[in-house]
């Protein structure tokens, strides 16, 4: 069992298709402090590929990706 991650902000992106999950996380990550974590919950299967691509391009870090019952949960740490 991985260590429980504490999110500083929870972002509900359920039901939103492309490009909204990536658009929203890019906006919301800037509303927390550097080093803080946003937990983004999405139902978009494309996000599984898109969030890592987004993080790599923007220099943010995805700490963990949880998949369960049609939902993908990303824990994103703001580095920049």
């Amino acid at each position, binding site marked *: 069992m991985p260590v429980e991650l504490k999110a500083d902000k929870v972002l509900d992106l359920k039901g*939103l*298709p492309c*490009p909204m999950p*990536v*658009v929203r996380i890019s*906006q919301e990550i800037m509303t927390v402090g550097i080093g803080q974590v946003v937990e983004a919950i999405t139902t978009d299967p494309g996000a599984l590929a898109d969030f890592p691509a*987004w993080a790599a391009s*923007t220099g943010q870090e995805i700490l963990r990706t949880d998949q369960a019952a049609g939902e993908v949960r990303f824990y994103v740490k703001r580095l920049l």
Partner: protein
Amino acid sequence: MGTEQAVKEQPRQAAGVNLPVENKISLIVFSGDLDKLLAALIISTGAVAMGMKARLFFTFWGTAALRDARKSVEGKNLMSKMFGFMLPKGATKVTLSKMNMGGMGTAMMKMLMKQKKVASLGEMLTLAGQMGVEICVCEMSMGLMGFKREELIDYPHMSLCGVASFLAEANTSRVQLFI
């Protein structure tokens, strides 16, 4: 034969060749079809989310999608009026490039989009404006079709431009697309 004379000698100017490539995307939006316009808006808003700067160059059929249905301008000649009448007046009036079927296909697609929470073209334009996507509209296309600046939508980052503006921007962009 004025054009022949003009192309005979064109010394190449090397300035600008070594300009640094920046993290930018430049798109030519030539098409006035709903599906292709949506693709252009999704890519450009996605690009801003990815930390890129995005600029859309609207030309030819694409310009009609930027008209504001609530605005009208006086003083157009007959041809301009005819073009204005025949071309879609804004983002809500554009149709699919395929399967339009007299508007039925487009209506069905819009219904599906709503059902699946896919943003409409109008909503995408608003989002693009909020995110800082820049729009340049081809001056020559506007003139050709008789469109005036005053009948375009209120978009926060819109300007009129020509081919040189696109090339200068594309030259320093990492990604260039023609849609």
